[in-house]
C-alpha cells in the first residue's frame, strides 16, 4: 500500500513539504492536505494591500496545482485533535484521517493587545488573507491609520499604508521601534527617517483602551494624550496555532520541539515553520523563528525525509529585511548578542549604518541599514548573510571589517567564502525550479 502522508496546514512550510515529497519520492505516495485556509503566502499580502498585485497573485498552489500534484484536500477544515498513538487526525467536522506520517505546519495567528475595545469594529489584525481584505476595505485616501506595535510585521505594511494615501501614526509600548530586529542606534535612525517622511511615532506608549466616538476610533493611553483615527491595526505579536494539539503527546516548549530531521518527540510526526522549535544555525539551540525562509527550509527538509531520504538540517538563520520609505533595514543571525565582539559604522552624510558581530574570527550577526537600491548596499546584504551562514574563518580580515564595516566585499572574496558556499545545499542536491515538480500521471 502507498505511504499515506498527512500535511496539516497549507502555508509556506506545508506547500514546500508537499512539493518536495513529489520531487524526491521513488514510489508514488498518497498526500492528504488539511488546511484552514487555501494555500497562499502571507508575506505577499502587503503587496496586495497596496494593490501592486491582484488577490490571485498571493496563492501558492491553486486547485489545479494541487490536483496535478495528486493531493487530496480538506480545505477550509481545521485539525481538531491528533491521536498520535493510533496515527489518526480528527478534523473539526468530525472526519478522521489516518496517516503513516504527518506534518504539523499550522503556523501562527495574530494576537491583539489585551485592552478593552481591541475586538471592536474598525480594529484590525494583518496576518491572514481575510484580515488583509478587512484592512483593504477600511483604508481610504486621507484615512488616519494608527498602527499599534512597531515590530517587523508592522513595518512590512508601512509602505503600503502610506501609498494608499493614508496618514500614519505608530504607537509602541517599548521605548523604541523594531525592538526585536535592530539595535538602538539603528532604531533611532529609522525613527528619524520615518518622522522626516511624515509618520508620527509615539514610543513608550501604554495603550489603555480603544473607544468609539462619532464613527471614529479614539485610543486612550496611560499618561499621554488621546489619539483619534479611522482605522486601528494591531501588530502586537503572534502566537503559534497549537492549541488543538494539547494532550496529543507531542512535546511542546515554545513550539513543537524537533530534532535535526524535523521530527517531533513522536517519530512519525514532523513539525515545520512557525510552529517548530528547531535548531538555530548560530546558537545551535532550539528556537522558534517565525520567518518565511525558516518555514521554506523546514518544509523542504520534512518533505525529503517523508519521501524516504535521510536529510539532516544544519539549522536556520534569522534573516529579515524590510523597506520603509526607500530605506532598507536588514538584520541577520545573532545581531543582538551583547557578549559578541562588535564593530559599528555610521555614515554622517547619508542614512547608512552597519553593525557587525563576531565570535572569534567568525561573523555571527549583522545589522545593515542603507538607502534602497544602493547597489552596494544590496551586495553587502547578501555577502554578510554568506559570511554568517558559512561562519568562514576571517583571520586578519576580521580586523579589516572592524575598521571598515562598509568594505565587506574584499573580506568576503578573500576569505574564500565562495569556495565554502558552492557545495552547500539544503537537500544534498541541486534545487529544482518551482514549476518543475513531477505531476500525477
Amino acid at each position, binding site marked *: 500500500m502507498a505511504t499515506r502522508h498527512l500535511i496539516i496546514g497549507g502555508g*509556506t512550510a506545508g506547500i514546500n513539504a508537499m512539493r518536495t515529497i513529489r520531487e524526491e519520492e521513488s514510489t508514488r505516495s498518497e498526500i492528504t492536505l488539511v488546511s484552514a485556509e487555501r494555500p497562499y*503566502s502571507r*508575506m*505577499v499580502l*502587503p*503587496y496586495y494591500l497596496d494593490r*501592486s*498585485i491582484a488577490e490571485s*497573485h498571493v496563492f*501558492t498552489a491553486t486547485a489545479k496545482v494541487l490536483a496535478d500534484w495528486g493531493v487530496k484536500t480538506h480545505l477550509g477544515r481545521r485539525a481538531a485533535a491528533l491521536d498520535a498513538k493510533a496515527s489518526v487526525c480528527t478534523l473539526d467536522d468530525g472526519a478522521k484521517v489516518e496517516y503513516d506520517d504527518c506534518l504539523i505546519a499550522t503556523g501562527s495567528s495574530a494576537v491583539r493587545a489585551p485592552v478593552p475595545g481591541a475586538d471592536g469594529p474598525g480594529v484590525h489584525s494583518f496576518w491572514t488573507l481575510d484580515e488583509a481584505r478587512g484592512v483593504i476595505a477600511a483604508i481610504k485616501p486621507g484615512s488616519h491609520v494608527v498602527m499599534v506595535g512597531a515590530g517587523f510585521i508592522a513595518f512590512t505594511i508601512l509602505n503600503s499604508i502610506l501609498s494608499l494615501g493614508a496618514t500614519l501614526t505608530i504607537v509602541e509600548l517599548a521605548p523604541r521601534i523594531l525592538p526585536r530586529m535592530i539595535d538602538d542606534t539603528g532604531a533611532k535612525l529609522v525613527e528619524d527617517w520615518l518622522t522626516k517622511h511624515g509618520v508620527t511615532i509615539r514610543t513608550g506608549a501604554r495603550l489603555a483602551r480603544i473607544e468609539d466616538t462619532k464613527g471614529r476610533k479614539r485610543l486612550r493611553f496611560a499618561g499621554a494624550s488621546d489619539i483619534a483615527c479611522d482605522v486601528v491595526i494591531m501588530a502586537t505579536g503572534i502566537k503559534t496555532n497549537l492549541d488543538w494539539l494539547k494532550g496529543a503527546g507531542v512535546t511542546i516548549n515554545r513550539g513543537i520541539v524537533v530534532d535535526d530531521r524535523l521530527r517531533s518527540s513522536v517519530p512519525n510526526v514532523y513539525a515545520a515553520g512557525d510552529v517548530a522549535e528547531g535548531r538555530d544555525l548560530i546558537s545551535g539551540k532550539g528556537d522558534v523563528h517565525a520567518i*518565511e*525562509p525558516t518555514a*521554506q*527550509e523546514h518544509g*523542504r527538509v520534512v518533505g525529503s525525509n517523508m519521501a524516504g531520504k535521510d536529510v539532516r538540517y544544519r539549522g536556520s538563520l534569522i*534573516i529579515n*529585511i524590510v523597506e520603509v520609505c*526607500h530605506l*532598507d533595514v536588514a538584520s541577520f543571525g545573532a545581531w543582538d548578542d551583547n557578549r559578541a565582539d562588535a564593530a559599528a559604522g555610521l555614515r554622517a552624510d547619508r542614512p547608512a549604518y552597519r553593525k557587525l558581530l563576531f565570535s572569534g574570527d567568525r561573523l555571527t550577526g549583522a545589522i545593515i541599514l542603507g538607502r*534602497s*537600491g544602493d*547597489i552596494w548596499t*544590496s*551586495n553587502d*546584504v*547578501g*555577502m*554578510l*548573510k*554568506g559570511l554568517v*551562514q558559512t561562519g568562514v574563518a576571517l583571520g*586578519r*580580515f576580521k*580586523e*579589516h571589517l572592524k*575598521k*571598515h564595516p562598509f568594505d*565587506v*566585499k*574584499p*573580506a568576503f*572574496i*578573500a*576569505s*574564500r*567564502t*565562495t*569556495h565554502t*558556499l*558552492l557545495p*552547500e*545545499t*539544503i537537500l544534498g*542536491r*541541486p*534545487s*529544482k*525550479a*518551482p514549476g*518543475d515538480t513531477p505531476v500525477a500521471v
Partner: protein
Amino acid sequence: MRVLKIHPEKCTGCLRCELACSYTQTGTFQPAKSVIRVSPFEGHTSYAPYTCTQCAEGWCMTACPVGAITINAAGAKDVLDDTCVGCKLCTIACPYGTMFYDPDTRKAFKCNLCGGAPACAEACPTAAITYEETATLDWLGDFAHERTARVLVGGRGSAS
C-alpha cells in the same frame, strides 16, 4: 552546463563587461544596473569581475515566496518580472551578494547568462571572462586572498 569562468589575472579593470551587461539587461548603458561587478584589489592596482555563480542551491530561487525565480534554458536562475512582487527576500537569501533590486521597477534582478549568450564574456577584450562547459569554482578567492593580504600588510588594516 556552461558557466562564466573568471580569469582574474587577465582583468584590466576596463569595465566593458559592466557596460555590456547593463545594455543587454536594461537597454541602457548604466553600470549601476549591471549584475556583473568589477572590484578593485590591492589598492586599485588589480581588478576582477564578480557575478552570480548560478549556485546549486539557488538560495534566491528557493526563498522566493511566489515562485518568481526559475531556471532558464541556459540553466541560469532567472527572475520572472511579472511574478516578482519586489519583496527582496531573494536579495538577503543569496549568500553571494549577487541578487539586486531595482527601486524604479520594484523588481529583483540578477544574472541570467543572457539566456545563453552572455554579453560580458563577449565584451571582455582580454578574455578575463569566458563562457565554458565546466564546474563553477571560486575563481577569485585565491587571487583576492593574496592581493588583499598585501594591502592589509601594507598598512590599511592591522594584519595579524
